[in-house]
């Protein structure tokens, strides 16, 4: 049987305000800060203390909601989500349930079949939990440590409709959202630090069927690659079950990145009854239209609009623009290059990014932000190329060295003496040397073996150590050969 996947995504993005959602504690980098140094009675769940909503967090949330074209609720309600866990100090999480901040939005993604609109069901605000570290000592009982630095940090939950059908679409949507929150300045997008986290709801159904299959929820998807792998794995697992006449069980799964498998975390029977009810400590959150208008007016250029502008402004193909728009950093890098040196044709810059840099990322596992060179460095290299001081193939190998070592083009070119020879006398000298040293080939050429011209070219370039201006070599060689032919004709 042929199946298709039906996938929805739940995205949790921290709102990186200065202070937490309901108290004045600073938001710190949970991976660096000393445990429990950014905590107070409110975010550690002491008795008698009360939450107060961080206005800035609401503003950040509204930015995202508006950028995703959501309908913002005039009045939304905070709710308590009740469950016991040591990383949840109050025994409930303040979230939103029946009346979320915003609903009915959308995000447009690119697929091989063209644009696709992914509907967003809801965007709501909540607080993050603390972090547990489980310790298994060599001696004695295992134990767990609780770090509440992250407890109470503002979180935005963005829930899509199950509009995605392939792992690639999921990644396009996830990275699109990630770009969005970064462009809006509300989240660093740093997935390794867990500031943006993804959960996928996956079910499958026979192609053509309208009915939804039983879905599973996959948690802890920390990388796009992992997410794609997990969904692909889950698709195959479910397909095998259905093909074997077995049912898919509704459950919550974890993803084991190392083993490359999903595993059951919690079955349907063990599903929590969260006993949501309106948070009595917080009045309804009222968002006036004037505030919405103000925030909307201040939204920056959003990733998709930027992609279209880049395409038009720099006269690129849609495909080129899409490649550049694969993430915000790439677009930034591209436009930085052009700003640094507007004399380099934008398409050249684009092609070097899409061709050379992307190839490097694929082979090295690095990214536009982790790589060792900056926009300035690529511009310098392209400048060498543009002014004919090095040729295309030299430039490529110089770039490889730059990417590997982080040294700049100028250093590499001068240290290795790679600067292109465009001195006509020198080139004539090299050509003459080749012709003199290879009389047999010259004779053969004169006897009509004209394709030996390429062979001579290669010899000249070899003699020049690859540095000779190939265009100049070509034309000069042509002239020299033509002269030989003419003098032969005269002799005859």
């Amino acid at each position, binding site marked *: 049987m042929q199946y298709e996947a039906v996938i929805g995504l739940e995205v949790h993005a921290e709102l990186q305000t200065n202070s937490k959602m309901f108290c004045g504690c600073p938001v710190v980098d949970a991976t660096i800060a000393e445990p429990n140094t950014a905590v107070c009675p409110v975010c550690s769940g002491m008795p008698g203390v009360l939450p107060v909503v961080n206005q800035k967090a609401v503003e950040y949330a509204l930015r995202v909601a508006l950028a995703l074209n959501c309908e913002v609720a005039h009045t939304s309600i905070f709710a308590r989500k009740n469950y016991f866990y040591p990383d949840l100090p109050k025994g409930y999480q303040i979230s939103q349930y029946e009346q979320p901040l915003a609903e009915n939005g959308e995000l447009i993604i690119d697929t091989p079949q063209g644009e696709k609109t992914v509907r967003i069901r809801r965007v709501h605000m909540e607080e993050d939990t603390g972090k547990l570290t489980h310790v298994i000592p060599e001696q004695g009982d295992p134990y767990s440590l609780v770090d509440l630095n992250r407890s109470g940090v503002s979180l935005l939950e963005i829930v899509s409709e199950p509009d995605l059908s392939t792992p690639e679409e999921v990644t396009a949507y996830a990275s699109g959202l990630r770009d969005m929150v970064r462009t809006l300045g509300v989240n660093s997008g740093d997935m390794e630090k867990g500031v943006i986290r993804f959960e996928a709801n996956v079910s499958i159904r026979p192609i053509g069927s309208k009915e939804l299959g039983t879905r599973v929820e996959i948690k802890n998807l920390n990388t796009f690659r992992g997410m794609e792998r997990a969904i692909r794995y889950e698709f195959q697992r479910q397909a095998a079950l259905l093909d074997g006449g077995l049912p898919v069980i509704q459950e919550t799964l974890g993803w084991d990145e190392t083993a490359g498998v999903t595993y059951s975390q919690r079955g349907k029977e063990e599903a929590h009854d969260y006993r949501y009810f309106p948070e009595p*400590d917080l009045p309804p959150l009222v968002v006036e239209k004037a505030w919405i208008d103000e925030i909307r007016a201040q939204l920056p250029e959003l990733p998709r609009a930027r992609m279209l502008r880049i395409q038009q402004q720099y006269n690129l193909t849609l495909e080129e623009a899409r490649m550049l728009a694969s993430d915000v950093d790439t677009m930034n890098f591209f436009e930085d290059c052009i700003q640094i040196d507007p004399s380099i044709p934008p398409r050249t810059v684009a092609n070097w990014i899409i061709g050379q840099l992307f190839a490097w990322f694929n082979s090295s596992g690095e990214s536009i932000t982790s790589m060792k060179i900056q926009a300035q460095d690529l511009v310098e290299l392209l400048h060498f190329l543009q002014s004919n001081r090095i040729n295309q193939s030299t430039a490529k190998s110089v770039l490889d060295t730059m990417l590997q070592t982080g040294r700049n083009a100028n250093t590499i070119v001068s240290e290795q003496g790679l600067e292109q020879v465009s001195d006509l006398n020198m080139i004539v000298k090299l050509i003459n040397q080749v012709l003199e040293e290879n009389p047999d080939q010259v004779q053969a050429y004169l006897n009509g073996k004209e394709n030996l011209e390429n062979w001579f070219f290669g010899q000249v370039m070899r003699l020049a150590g690859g540095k000779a201006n190939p265009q100049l070599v070509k034309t000069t060689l042509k002239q020299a050969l033509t002269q030989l032919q003419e003098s032969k004709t005269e002799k005859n």
Partner: protein
Amino acid sequence: MSNLSDLSVRQALKLLQNGDISSVEVTQSYLDRIQTVEPQIKAFITLTPELAIAQAKSADQLRKNNPLEDLPALLGLPIAVKDVLALQNVRCTCGSRILENFIPPYTATTVQRLLDAGVVILGKTNTDEFAMGSSTENSAYQTTHNPWNQAHVPGGSSGGSAAAVSAGMAPIALGSDTGGSVRQPASFCGITGLKPTYGRVSRFGLIAYGSSLDSVGIFSRSAKDLAVIFEQIAGRDPKDATSMDIPVPGIHLNSNTDLTGVRIGVPKEYFITGIQTDVEKNVRTAIQHFESLGAQIVEISLPHTEYALPVYYLIATAEASANLARFDGVRYGYSAEETSLWERFKHSRGRGFGSEVKRRIMLGTYALSAGYYDAYYGQAQKVRTLIKRDFEQAFEHVDAIATPVAPTTAFKIGEHTNDPLAMYLEDIFTLPTNLAGVPGLAFPVGFDHQGLPVGMQLMGPHFKEETLLKLVHAYQLSTQWHKSMPDL
């Protein structure tokens, strides 16, 4: 100055201001009184005599070094605080084993405002565990005795505060009122107690029971004294998002007892069968007294009154089930020595909480559970709206509503211990105010045949505490009930 502890707040403040007595003297006289009567009454869970004397000394120092007009309003005045309000560095038990050694690193806004106004803190008073009860018998530490008859309860849950004021161990005490926990013990102990409008007084630092119902309240001997304290603690607090930004009027209580033009409603639903005869008789007499002062008495109806009790026990317990989830033995409080996480959770709570608290957590958890939410919690919220509307409609016609505080006077210790429902009925006349969020004031209007105080309640529109205080002040200017003190 042997009877310093009989002074009214205003008299005490006057003497302090004139330099006739020092704060140390006043404080010491209360501490002495506590030493004498506390063994019989057991009003305090924690006494803070050293803190009190230190605060009194610095109050006296401040007074010595500054002109009168620069001094805070309550400088040197001793108070008692119910042990559900946090005071930094002093343990706060909530009457529970689970918080036996909990020392909060913060101070409740109400307490802080009084500290800023210069008060001296005598100690933390007894309460039903987590303010759940109507007798203080649910305290994990001790049962407080009614100063009028020690075989009887002082009411609850703020029974410790009520008994402390009644027995002259403090001129003022703070309490909390979720369903009547200030007004009912005030009534049982023959003193005056105010539950302000919800949102009028900050809840920050008040250890929550039912968050949408909890109010910090005040006990004193008279409306006049309450007004002095109320002015200090009322008003918006940025730390409590449910506190309202509505100006607090300076409350001027003068000697005018003419209530002409005032309309007082008497709801028929509050004079029901089962109400103790001499409670009804005394309350009716007090209503007549208001009439004799010029007030117009109007019979009114609050038709949804009968639903208040079930609605209250659904909403309060639902909120409590979440509010008390934080006591898990992980960060503070009692922690059972168990190696597995879930065993630790279970046994910390199982051993830390008393039976009434567990009963309410279970009730509330059930009311919020999947499949039951709509029928219980959801329905209760709808009916709560109807009860609120009853009051709004009534207050279109009257300035205040007069009712008994409780159907009975103080019952005997142990009388309701095995009958939670009978205990819940003690709050039947006080809970509607909490559901509606309106203010309520309880004050003594006589004694029953056993010599136990009878209290009356006046309820007012939102943020109209001033009206209630003025009416009761007029009553107290023209009667003596509030001046009666138990023989101890």
